[in-house]
């Protein structure tokens, strides 16, 4: 029994121990400041390599699942079960001609391809991937995520503006409007959780869920739904993929990009989509906590389960229109997030922390809000039902035409 626990502990801490071993190895030869410096670089390197490598399986995962949703196989040519398709795609994208339109603003156009990907990797720095597995535990973790995450907007707008194409500027404008609007409900929905935790640090958010013995999705189901909806819009995924709106503005902001620069946008999009799942896992699903399996396995399991939800939505839902998108953010998500915040603040003050009673009270408060929405909205859903009228018209006798 003891030995099994030992093995589990070893697997759980394998990455932490590795970094420990590496730094102590360096400490034999180098002064302390150099070790710190090198370790920082090593951590960043690991994160970036992880981010890039994860594209390979995220991409194949997404395409396989989408294929199944759409009643087809998905990629199955290259590698076993088509698992290496992403490699083939990368080779293709890298060997494509890199076009800069003659009328484009060259500097901004080329810069814009790099800008969105930087904040994407910066977000990964504060995410606790497992017990003790965090690159840097910032005390303002969530604030940092929000601040850095919104930087991507600038890159996308730069791309839209500098391409000197009307489709891309439409895409760019849509992106800015959408991201600015959806950031507000996204942040507001998490503020409820932060109230319960009393800290912005991502590590303490995870630990607080250990103290409650419940993931915050149970305490704050509405906030989870609000956060996830807003976050999908934030990373421009279907049904909020207006900035690229394939069928309307063709590809939106990256319409003029080709080859590796186009791949950069794709990369940023995939890593972004993964990071919102990872943030949702950390904040609402208890992060790396879970029985038996090593902590990092739990984290990735939960994050990829959420990613599956993203793929599922992409495969099934139609797209919103631009005015409806704004209405949805400002008239539905923001009021709900505010209501949730107020109710949470009130209930959290009244009930004891880290107790079952408190959890039930918070859950009940959330359910009350959800029931209120249904009562207000349901009559409208009901009355809007529409059907065709079937006219049974007897055939007029056949006329003799001249």
């Amino acid at each position, binding site marked *: 029994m003891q030995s099994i626990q030992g093995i589990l502990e070893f697997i759980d801490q394998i990455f932490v121990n590795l970094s420990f071993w590496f730094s102590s190895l360096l400490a034999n030869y180098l002064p302390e400041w150099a070790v710190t410096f090198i370790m920082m670089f090593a951590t960043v390197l690991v994160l970036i390599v992880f981010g890039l490598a994860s594209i390979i399986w995220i991409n194949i995962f997404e395409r396989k699942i989408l294929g199944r949703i759409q009643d087809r196989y998905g990629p199955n040519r290259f590698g076993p079960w088509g698992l290496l398709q992403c490699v083939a795609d990368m080779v293709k994208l890298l060997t494509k001609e890199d076009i800069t339109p003659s009328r484009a603003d060259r500097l901004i156009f080329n810069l814009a391809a790099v800008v969105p990907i930087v904040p994407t990797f910066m977000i990964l720095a504060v995410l606790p991937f497992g017990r003790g597995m965090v690159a840097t535990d910032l005390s303002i973790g969530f604030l940092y995520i929000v601040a850095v995450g919104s930087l991507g907007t600038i890159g996308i707008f730069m791309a839209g503006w500098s391409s000197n194409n009307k489709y891309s500027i439409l895409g760019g404008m849509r992106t800015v409007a959408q991201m600015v609007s959806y950031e507000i409900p996204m942040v507001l929905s998490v503020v409820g959780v932060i109230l319960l935790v009393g800290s912005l640090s991502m590590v303490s958010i995870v630990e607080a869920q250990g103290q409650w013995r419940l993931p915050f999705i149970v305490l704050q189901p509405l906030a989870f739904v609000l956060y996830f909806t807003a976050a999908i819009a934030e990373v421009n995924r279907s049904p909020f993929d207006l900035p690229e709106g394939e069928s*309307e503005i*063709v590809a939106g902001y990256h319409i003029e990009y080709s080859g590796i620069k186009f791949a950069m946008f794709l990369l940023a999009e995939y890593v972004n989509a993964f990071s919102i799942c990872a943030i949702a896992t950390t904040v609402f699903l208890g992060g790396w906590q879970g029985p038996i399996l090593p902590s990092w396995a739990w984290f990735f399991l939960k994050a990829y389960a959420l990613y599956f939800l993203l793929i599922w939505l992409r495969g099934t839902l139609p797209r919103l229109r631009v005015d409806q998108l704004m209405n949805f953010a400002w008239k539905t998500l923001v009021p709900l997030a505010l209501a949730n915040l107020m109710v949470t603040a009130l209930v959290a003050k009244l009930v004891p922390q880290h107790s079952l009673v408190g959890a039930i009270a918070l859950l009940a408060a959330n359910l009350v809000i959800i029931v209120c929405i249904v009562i207000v909205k349901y009559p409208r859903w009901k009355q809007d039902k529409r059907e065709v009228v079937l006219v049974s*018209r007897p055939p007029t006798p056949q006329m003799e035409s001249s």
Partner: protein
Amino acid sequence: MTKLKTETVTLNMGPHHPSTHGVFRLILTLDGETVVDVEPVVGYLHRNHEKIGEKNNWIQNTPFTDRLDYISPMNNEFAYVLAVEKLAEIDPPERAKYIRIIMVELNRVANHLISIGFLLNELGCFFTPMFYALRWREMIVDLYEMTCGSRMMPNYFWIGGVSADLPEGFLPECKELVSALPGFLDEMEQLITENEILQMRCKNVAILPPEVATAFGCTGPLLRASGVPYDVRRAEPYSIYDRFDFDIPIGTVGDVYDRYLVRIAEARQSVRIVDQALRDLPEGETATPKKRKFKPPEGDIYHRTEAPKGELGFYLVSDGTENPYRYRIRAPSFVNLQALPYMCRGNKIADVVVVIGSIDITMGEVDR
């Protein structure tokens, strides 16, 4: 706050655009995201169809009509063949008439499936409903392949009948398909019709009032969705449509959502007709004896039929020779397309592609 000076933007959409159903160009005048004006430009697929039709002889024109609306080739052949038969006063055998109805109505189902699939695709469904619809369309074209060897360009109808009798195994497979199709339509409706986003996008978008629709000369599902129960199969029954029992579905508002609902309802009605035709299918000959050189008597004829997209008419003038003197097509897509600017004004860009999808055009037919 001072009032900002704004100006409109001209955006060229197409001819290479994923949602214009071929090579169709739109010159949009935009005020931000709102469409101020639309100017459709057609003609990128013009290939002298009508003039070539005059050079072909009467029989060669039958396969040539397949190229008009390549989504529903059987309907094009049907319209042409009926016009010629009316001109030459040929009466095809009973069995051929029933086979034709089966083919044409199956084709209507296939067309509406594709039309709904594309509409949902343009709404941003990322191909899922499209693939579902195509799977069933595939079964229908499989039946065509079984009968005449070709899936899209069947050349199955001949003047005075059909080119071959139904093959062995057609009837059981067709019956199976017909009994399964309503189930698929139910499934499709269950999955997507009640969807909140679909309803938001489609309801009260691009309303076409019945008077405007008739003024533009719109026909087919577009007109019926506006609430006018005009269907050539009922208003002026041709072939043997007066023997079948079916209803005309009409919409109540005339928006994109109604067009979507009307198409699904029409597909159901078509399945009903096929079902009745399969039940009543008589035995016997499938074609009148064929002449090597077909020469209809002098005269002219206009014959209209209800194609899936609307009223498809052929105006044929014969001078008694092997070739038609004039071969003119009234293409439903082309006429229905005229209502596009009316429906798009004041809507958003995203609605423009949805409206095109809801009109259901095929460029092969628009440009001829």
